[in-house]
C-alpha cells in the first residue's frame, strides 16, 4: 500500500498556553513538536510498511523552514519521503485547510506519478482540537472515512479498520482509497535511532507552493476562561486533623 500521513506541527502540549498582551495565544517561545496523534498515525503506517511492504510518504503544510524539522523527524521514524506545502496557514479555518490539503495532495500525487491508497491524519490536533480535518478531506476526495482508527489491515479486496468506541471497538470494512483519522492505539510511537536521525537531517524535501483557500469561519478574538480561584488549602501533620477540617467545610457546603 502507498500511504500518505498528514502531520501538523504544534506547540508542545505540556506547556500551558496563555494570551499575550495583544490578546493572542502566546506560543512564540514554546517548542514546536509533531502533534501527538499524528505521531500515532505515523507509527501505524510504518508498522504496516514493515509488515507488508509498500511506501509511507509524510507531508505537512506550513512555513517551509519552520515545519522542516517535523518532517525530518518523521523521515527518521521511517517515512520514505516527505513533502512540504509552503503556505502560511496560521489563520486558516478547517474548511480552508482541507481545501488546501486537497490541492496539496493532488500536487504530491502528480510528482509521485501515482495516487495514494490510504491517507492518515491524527484524530485531532492538540492546539485546535477540532477533529474535523480528516472528515472534511475524505468528503472532498469522495472517499470512505473512518475516525478514531486504532489499527487497520488490508485484505485482497478490502481495508479492515478497527475503530475505537466508548465500550470497545468496531470492526469496519471499506474500500481503498480511504481516509482514516487515528487515535492512540495500544502502542507508543518509536524513538528514532541516532543513525536514522542523522540520515534524515540530510533528506531533500521538495517544497510545493500552495494558494490560500477561503475561510468560512472568522475569528473575532480570543478570551481566557474564567479563572477558578484556588480556595482553602489544608496542611496538617496528621491525616485525622486534615480530614476533620475538610469534613467541616464539606458539611457546611452541604456536599456530603
Amino acid at each position, binding site marked *: 500500500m502507498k500511504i500518505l500521513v498528514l502531520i501538523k506541527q504544534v506547540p508542545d502540549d505540556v506547556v*500551558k498556553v496563555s494570551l499575550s498582551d495583544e490578546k493572542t495565544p502566546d506560543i512564540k517561545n514554546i517548542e514546536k513538536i509533531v502533534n501527538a496523534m499524528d505521531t500515532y498515525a505515523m507509527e501505524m503506517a510504518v508498522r504496516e510498511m514493515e509488515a507488508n511492504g509498500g511506501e509511507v510518504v509524510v507531508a505537512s503544510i506550513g512555513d517551509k523552514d519552520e515545519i522542516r524539522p517535523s518532517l525530518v523527524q518523521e523521515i527518521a521514524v521511517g517515512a520514505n519521503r516527505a513533502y512540504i506545502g509552503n503556505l502560511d496557514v496560521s489563520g486558516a479555518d478547517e474548511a480552508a485547510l482541507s481545501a488546501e490539503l486537497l490541492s496539496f495532495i493532488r500536487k504530491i500525487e502528480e510528482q509521485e506519478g501515482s495516487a495514494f491508497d490510504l491517507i492518515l491524519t491524527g484524530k485531532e490536533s492538540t492546539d485546535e482540537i477540532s477533529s474535523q480535518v480528516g472528515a472534511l478531506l475524505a468528503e472532498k476526495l469522495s472517499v470512505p472515512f473512518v475516525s478514531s482508527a486504532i489499527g487497520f489491515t488490508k485484505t485482497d479486496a478490502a481495508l479492515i479498520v478497527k475503530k475505537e468506541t466508548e465500550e470497545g471497538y468496531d470492526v469496519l470494512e471499506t474500500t481503498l482509497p480511504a481516509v482514516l483519522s487515528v487515535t492512540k492505539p495500544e502502542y507508543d510511537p518509536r524513538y528514532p535511532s541516532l543513525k536514522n536521525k542523522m540520515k534524515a537531517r540530510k533528506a531533500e524535501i521538495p517544497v510545493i507552493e500552495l494558494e490560500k483557500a477561503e475561510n468560512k469561519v472568522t475569528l473575532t478574538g480570543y478570551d481566557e476562561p474564567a479563572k477558578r480561584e484556588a480556595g482553602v488549602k489544608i496542611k496538617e501533620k496528621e491525616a485525622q486533623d486534615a480530614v476533620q477540617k475538610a469534613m467541616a467545610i464539606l458539611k457546611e457546603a452541604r456536599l456530603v
Partner: protein
Amino acid sequence: MKTLIYIEIENGNIQNGSLEIMSLAKTLSDPCAVVIGSDVDNASDAVSAYGIPVIEVPCDKVSDDAEVFILNQIIKDEKPEYVLFAGTLKGKDLAPRVAARNDGACITDVIKADTENGVFTRPAFGGTVLENLKFSADTLKVMTVRSGSFEKLTQGEKAEVTKKEYALPEDALKVILKDSVKEISEKVDLEGANVVIAGGRGMGSKEGFAMVEELASLLGGEVGATRAAVDEEWTTRIHQVGQSGKNIAPKLYIACGLSGAMQHVSGITSSGFIVAINKDEDAPIFDVADLGIVGRCEDILPVLIDEIKKLKGL
C-alpha cells in the same frame, strides 16, 4: 430560518447532550429535531414533548454513511441555517461531513453562544484559551456542542412528528460494520453524575485505586480517572475525564493523586466544588481546587472514607 437538531438515542433514551442542544437551538431560530434509526417511535415522541417538531426517519442499518446521507437529504428539503450536534464521538464524526457535503462550515465544541451577534466560543490549546468565532453569512452553519455547556430543555407543549423515508443508494454506504466488540460492560454516566471521585497515577496501584472506587460508591458518585490511571489499567477508558475523555460538571469533584494537567483540568472546570488531595503542595490541581488537602492519598483517603461511613451510619 430553521435550526436542525440531530438527536442521539442511547438505549432508547434521548442522550443528555441532545437535550442541551435543543435549548441552544431554541435561541437560534426555528428548531426542528431529526431522529434517525430503527424503532425510534418512542424517542421521537419523547423529543416532541419538548415542544420541538420532529422529523423521524426510519433506518434499519444506521451507520455514519447512512446518517450523513439522510441528513444531507433533509438539509436539501428544509434548507436550515444551523445544524447542531451534541459533542459526542458520533456528533463529531457526523458534523464535519455534513458541513463539507453542503460546502458549509463547522465549529467544534461550542461552549457559549452570543446569538445576537452570531459569535460562538470554543476552547483551544487544551482549554486554556477560548476562541470567539463567526460564520460567513451565506454558509451552512454546523456546530458540535460541548456537553454541560447549556441547560437541558424542559418539556413544553407537544409538537408534531413527521415521518420521512429516504432510500439509501448502495454507493452512499462505503463503510460496512462487520463486528462490534464490547470490552467494557459497565455503564458509566460521568456527564450526568452529581458526584465524581477521580484517581490518578498517585493512587499507586490497582489496590490503591480501589479506594477511589470505594469513596465513589459511598457518596453515590461515579469513578473518574486520568489518562495515566487508564494507561496503568487500574480502570477502563470509559472513566477517563478530560480532553480525550469526558467533560463533566458534577456538584462535587474529588481529585485524588492527580497532578492537574491541563488536558485533564479542561474536563472538570464546570464542576461545582473541586476537592484535591495531593502530596505535592505545588501540584497545579490546587490552583483550581476549592478545597485542597496536602497529603498522601494512602493516609488521607482511609480516614475520609471512615468519616463518610460514620456520617451515613455505616
